[in-house]
């Protein structure tokens, strides 16, 4: 799984991803599986710990200048909480950090999340390679924006 390293954009600085479960949800086994998978794909991985607020997630993401925030919820609050994260990013005028989602998300909600710019939204059973490929692609977009002249 060398997906994370294949792009020249990440030659000297690997993809940096923040895993977070904002909201009241303690199901973190999936996060640990992803953390290890991302690390093994050559990424720099941060985990925000249990029960951070959306504000704390953004603060961490900004401090660490991550490329991707990967959100996960299994408690059904994704439409509220993921939206809050995405709204906060917009309010702070941050457009060079991508947001992806995952967890138990009904198909109908996926479209709504996509519209907020939260992509992926993979459920249980998704092959890790699919998730890594998606994160890599979103990270590339984010990194291009970070490196753009403005």
């Amino acid at each position, binding site marked *: 799984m060398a997906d*994370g*390293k294949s792009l020249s954009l990440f*030659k*000297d*600085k*690997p993809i940096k991803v923040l895993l977070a479960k904002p909201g009241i949800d303690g199901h973190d086994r999936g996060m640990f599986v992803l*953390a*290890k998978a*991302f*690390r*093994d*794909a*050559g*990424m*720099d*991985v*941060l*985990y*925000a*710990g249990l029960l*951070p607020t959306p504000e*704390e997630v953004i*603060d*961490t993401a*900004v*401090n*660490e*200048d991550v490329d991707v925030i990967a959100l996960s919820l299994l408690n059904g609050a994704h439409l509220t909480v993921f939206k809050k994260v995405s709204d906060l990013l917009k309010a702070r005028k*941050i457009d060079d950090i991508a947001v992806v989602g995952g967890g138990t998300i009904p198909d109908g909600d996926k479209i709504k999340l996509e519209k907020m710019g939260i992509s992926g939204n993979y459920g249980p059973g998704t092959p890790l390679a699919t998730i890594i490929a998606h994160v890599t692609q979103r990270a590339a977009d984010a990194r291009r924006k*970070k*490196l*753009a*002249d*403005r």
Partner: protein
Amino acid sequence: MSRLNIDGLAKGIIAGDIPSISRGISIVEDHSQNYASSELMKKIYDRTGRIHIIGVTGPPGVGKSSLIGMLAAEMSKRKQKTSIIAVDASSPFTGGTLLGNRIRMQDSINQNSIFMRSLASRGFKGGLSSAALSTIKILDAAGYESVIVETVGSGQADIDIMKIAHTILVLHAPGLGDIVQSIKAGIMEIGDLFVVNKIDRQEAFLAIKDIEDSLAMLPSGTWTKKVIGVNSLTGEHVGELMDEITRHREYYFKNRPDDEGIREMSIYIEDEMRRIINERSRQKGDLHREMKKLMSRGIDPFNGALKIVDKIIGTEV
């Protein structure tokens, strides 16, 4: 590829703007951005030289991250503007890194809005020391009064960072084997303050005694090295530790060595040379195949290596 607005970035950093600081660090971390880094360093240089660099080192599991969280909270209480840099080890197999230090201090960081950045050690590829040093410069220019640097306490790069720290805390905990054994190799000399964490454990007293005994055997300098027992979960005695750090800071700044710049430059030189050599070996094509060829010709590994090195840097060794 990129022409970032370095001027604006430098202004943002000096004004203490968090996104600018953070982006600046991303630039100095990335060797493909060396030109941008050099411009940035030029622009912030005259704003640097005030920050107090506190190094925290010690074996894994002794509570470095938790203690740093407590220290940072204590500093905030004392109205000191502090920041944290934590180094995590990269996997030597995949190059990936789990930046896990943050999680132990997350609460303290959030409650006190402390700037904290995780750096990956990148293993043999090097670059950590210069990235960490430039990160410190950025925080310095941004007006932070102190920066706490956490390292895993092993490896060359770690030791390099400790070379630029003003106050070095060596952390240990009881129950991890013979303490003197594990901290004797050079660390007794570089440490300014010795901290025994987890003092609620019964062997803690002996650990403190052990370290005090070995310190007594060091030649005495103008600074008397001290051993302090703390509990990084409850915060017990963290205030006293903070007092000692402050005392050492005053001592250091009063007796500030005049070769700081030279030491920093040496770190950059070493890192840059390592980077150039790595880059060149990459350009020289498939060195692995070359090595195989040499081995198949019956050349011994030592002389084979000399040939390869000659091929990379082009000087007869």
